[in-house]
């Protein structure tokens, strides 16, 4: 069983296991998030992301394993410090915005007389003030999404769970939400950010956790992971022609790509050796870097190295 020893984390899950029917949807998952940390939670559809999140939030009880939120098993006091924007989300289309936000705030322990003020502040933060008297059903999909985000953060949570928060949003509102998440992170909020968009993870997250077939297959800092998965290839651009790249020491293959070369090293070869040889030869170098894969490439590589299909989540439930 995987274990994590760090204490005082907003959330710490260890050995989580969930079975639906004959299928182990989540297997021995351990996850921890520190205050002020944004963790990207990625994985293919049906990998077990949503089930893991639901277990962490006590919506589903795990078959095995433990979840501690703010240092203790989740209870009502802990629940009100959490903000959750699920992937399958919606609000009451027939109701106006103020009573909905008030209800959501009260469920988070906000006294009813304080709720309107917090709701107004959240609406203003997300540019929704002009819509505050409307019914939910009168809002566009994007505005409904922003409204849900406002409902999620209005009570100033310490632990924020966002499951595909940007789907359906235009670039302007995506930027608005990203900025808000960054501000919350700066305020010390721990954020678990589940998404399929690896570029968003690279931009927003300090750490990435990848799940596949219900198991954690990758867990680490974004830069660290990219470095770990860096290939043995170099990207080289020179100011002058370099017709003899293949003759450089330690080079196994060289391929002209665009304005430069993509060089594969031999087992004995090193980037330092190549660079030294180029400098010794008086080549004017404009670009020299080790090719680091994007998170998306790493994701595809890891997922592809299995069967390419995630373990389906529980048949009758949604999410991954």
């Amino acid at each position, binding site marked *: 069983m995987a274990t994590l020893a760090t204490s005082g984390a907003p959330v710490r899950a260890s050995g989580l296991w969930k079975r639906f029917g004959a299928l182990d949807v989540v297997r021995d998952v351990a996850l921890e998030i520190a205050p002020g940390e944004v963790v990207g939670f990625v994985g293919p559809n049906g990998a077990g992301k949503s089930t893991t999140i639901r277990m962490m939030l006590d919506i589903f009880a795990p078959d095995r394993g433990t979840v501690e939120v703010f240092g203790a098993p989740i209870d009502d006091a802990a*629940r*009100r410090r959490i903000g959750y924007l699920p992937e*399958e989300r919606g609000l009451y289309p027939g109701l106006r915005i103020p009573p909905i936000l008030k209800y959501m705030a*009260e*469920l988070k322990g*906000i006294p009813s007389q304080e709720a309107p003020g917090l709701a107004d502040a959240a609406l203003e933060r997300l540019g929704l003030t002009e819509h505050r008297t409307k019914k939910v059903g009168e809002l566009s999909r994007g505005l409904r999404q922003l409204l849900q985000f406002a409902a999620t953060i209005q009570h100033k949570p310490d632990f924020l769970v966002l499951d595909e928060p940007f789907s359906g949003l235009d670039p302007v509102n995506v930027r608005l939400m990203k900025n808000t998440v960054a501000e919350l992170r700066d305020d010390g909020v721990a954020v678990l950010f589940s998404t399929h968009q690896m570029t968003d993870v690279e931009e927003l997250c300090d750490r990435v956790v990848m799940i596949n077939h219900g198991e954690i297959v990758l867990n680490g800092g974004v830069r660290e992971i990219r470095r770990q998965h860096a290939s043995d290839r170099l990207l080289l651009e020179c100011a002058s022609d370099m017709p003899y790249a293949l003759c450089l020491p330690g080079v196994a293959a060289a391929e002209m790509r665009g304005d430069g070369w993509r060089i594969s090293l031999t087992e004995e070869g090193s980037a330092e050796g190549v660079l030294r040889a180029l400098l010794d030869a008086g080549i004017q170098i404009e670009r020299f870097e080790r090719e680091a894969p994007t998170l998306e490439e790493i994701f595809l590589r890891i997922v592809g190295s299995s069967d390419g299909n995630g373990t389906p989540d529980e048949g009758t*439930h949604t999410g991954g």
Partner: protein
Amino acid sequence: MKGRTPVGSVRIVTRHEFRTAVTRPSYIILTAAMPVLVAMAVAGFAVFTLVTREDAEAETASSAESSAQTPRLGYVDLTDGPALFGAHQDQPGALFVPMPDRDAGIAALNDEQIDALFVFPPDYAETGTVVRVRFADDAGSVFGPDGPSYSGTLRGFVLSNLFADEVPVGLAERLQIPYRLEIEEVRPDGGTEDESAGFDLGRAAFFAVAGISLLFSVFFSSGYVLNALVEEKENRVMEVLLSSVKPDALLLGKFLGLGAAGLLQMAAWLASVGVGVLVVGLIVDIPADILTMPGIGDIGIAAGYFLFGYALFASLMAAVGAVTTSLREANQISAIVIVPAFIPVWLNFILFTEPEGTVARVLTYIPVTAPVTGFIRLAIGAMGPLETVAALLVLAASAAGALWLAMRLFRAYLLMYGKRPTLKEMARSVVSG
């Protein structure tokens, strides 16, 4: 930020559900419909009563006036011998006035001193012929071409005079109306059935209204729980809520809030009916039993049946809402719950004719038929205290069981979208919790 207990969560959900339900236009329209209908019915009844009362008063006045102007019917007795018709000239509805001869009678008729003229010819005794003399232009009267026939009056006049001094006065009446037929039903042992003995009209009315109210609550109050659950699943609000509140607290809050809204609606309807009855009571006489406040015991029994009945049906509806994925599907499946509630209504002829028979007793203890059966049997006074208490205990236990079942299913399928679980899956979920 203040703390919040699970009870606090239930209270918040209850308040939200109640407020949301009672401010819905459909709820307001439906709630107001009954008072409006009752007001219209009472107003219509009042107008009808006033009109008919005026007619009756006019008729009474007319009758009084007409009695002051009792028709005077002239007659000429041409028979031989002693006068046959002199003893009883004052008949109900007419005064018979003797005329010395036919010409005098015609003159009196022409002068409107009399309203009709009858001539008893000399051979009356042999032939029974009586001649009514009238003017040829009397045709076209509202009473027909011949005007009032006075045949009944004439018959009474003739009979009472023919048998004058022959039979006693009372017997003379029997000659005119020989008998009035009455029927008496007896048991083979000769005893008589007195159906009204022990029947409390006020109690019957009270339990009848309570039973009807329960049927309405099955349709409406418990239906609100079903709709709210399925709508939240359809709207995808459920998971948002579940990050803030436990499933049991959420379900209980809905149960209480929507139940309160439904019961408020029911109370409004019952109050409007009650006010309507009181207003009607001011217009016409209503049996005093109906206007009498029921006893504490009866109120307690009705409240028990009502609350446990609501709890049972709302829980079953919640269970249906938990395992269905759309409002349409939920409404179709809810028939499984609603239809059995009406079985006692369909079998009412059995319950009324054999209120203590096997069918009645069995239906009393089957949870879904118990409330309505209980109200029917209580209304006709066919349930003793022990049986009532036993039936209420069974119903209460069933309601608790249904709530437990609903919570289990709700917990298991609260985030299920798109696929309904099989019965086997549901059974497994209930057992495993």
